[in-house]
């Protein structure tokens, strides 16, 4: 029973980190429009590098989340912390790693 409770806690925590359907739409819209302005509509890159699964492979989630939230000094990548939470950044990284999902 204790194990089950723990499991439920974990799964509900996992569930809670998923943005609401409405928020997901907003985030996807940001991805195509605002991220896409530099990284390309197809995410093959532009002023910024490509954000395709292959280019992101080997880069840990937390490294990518830090880049999204705090930007990258010396490049054109700005910090998005004011507009995106840590959980949302991780959710976006998930989308980038599995674009078909």
């Amino acid at each position: 029973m204790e194990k089950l409770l723990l499991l439920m806690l974990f799964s509900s925590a996992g569930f809670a980190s998923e943005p609401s359907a409405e928020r997901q739409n907003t985030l996807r819209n940001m991805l195509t429009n605002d991220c896409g302005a530099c990284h390309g509509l197809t995410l093959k890159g532009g002023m910024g590098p490509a954000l395709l699964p292959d280019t992101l492979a080997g880069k840990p989630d937390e490294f990518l989340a830090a880049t999204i939230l705090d930007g990258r000094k010396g490049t054109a990548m700005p910090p998005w912390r004011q507009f995106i939470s840590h959980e949302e950044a991780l959710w976006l990284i998930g989308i980038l790693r599995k674009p078909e999902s």
Partner: protein
Amino acid sequence: MTRLLPLLCFILSFNVLAELRATGDLGIVIEREKGNALIVNTTKHTQLAKIEKLGDLSHASVVFSRDERYAFIFGRDGGLSKIDLLQDKLNKRIIQAGNSIGGAISQDGKLIAVSNYEPGGVKVFSSDTLELVADIPAVYGEGKRSKVVGLVDAPGQRFVFSLFDAGEIWLLDLKNPKTPAIKKFLNTGKQPYDAVIAEGRYYIAGLFGESGLALLDLWNPEAGVKRVLPDYVKDDEKLPVYKMPHLEGWAVAGDYLFVPAIGKHEVWIIDKRQWKLIKTIPVLGQPVFVMARPDARQIWVNFAFPDNNQVQIIDANELSLAKTLAPGKAVLHMEFTPRGEQVWLAIRDDNRLAVYDTETLEEIARLPADKPNGIFFSARAHKTGL
């Protein structure tokens, strides 16, 4: 039969007349996600045609042939499409690079130059056939290739462009297209992000990697590239930039230049007799386009995310803000009619275009468009740098 001939001629000419279309008041609107180009009439506020499947137009720009019959569209994916405005159709389309940012048409209208990120460089094509005329790789350092930005045409069959990664400005002379002559200016400033040519004479690149602007006077290239407004914005004062300013519409009004600041929510007014900053105008966000109405009395400014639902208008006589408008969600681009009585706005997230009267500042028309991100009118055909 001889009697019938004049009648026949009359009927024939009538048929031809019915199909005639002038192009001086036409334009192209880009639908970024669908990859479409709409042909619009700016007098009647109508859409005439939709040309589909032009690739990734998430960043796109357009130049026009000097006869204003053809529009050349530069897509993000390296696509170069030639649209026939008379016949509402795609004339020819090539993929000339992996990733590109914009282009220009030569003084004589015969050459189309494209600036590419990948592979970094400039390619030049015949505007007639889109066949390759010259290939200029942007090589710097030890064989590295730079992204190319801020490509403009200049008098004398020349093009000028900037190397983002190298911090260089190149002057390309194509009087003889088979043997291109390149003059390189090195160490002109870190990370030039875009550039503009003012009055066919001053090439000015905005810098992202350091403060100020790089200026090349094409009447006196021997003097080299000068730095304008150095150290104006300190690094620690810089605000995040959620979209790079575009300098193409840079506004010249008399002796003054109106310039989007970068990393500051300001428009700068520069006196171009001395290249000194004479005033800063605080605006509501990071300016993207700072564009003068053709008579230069008004300067229209749009903004980067998250302030892109508003537009501000500067009075060029008072040198102050005159009005703030809220046209809709995500105003990405503005284009004035040739003599400036109206301005068209591309409002991406509302899926429409809005037409404003520039005297009353009232909206006078709307047209549907799917995620529009660029508006280009054929009158650009006769303007250096557009």
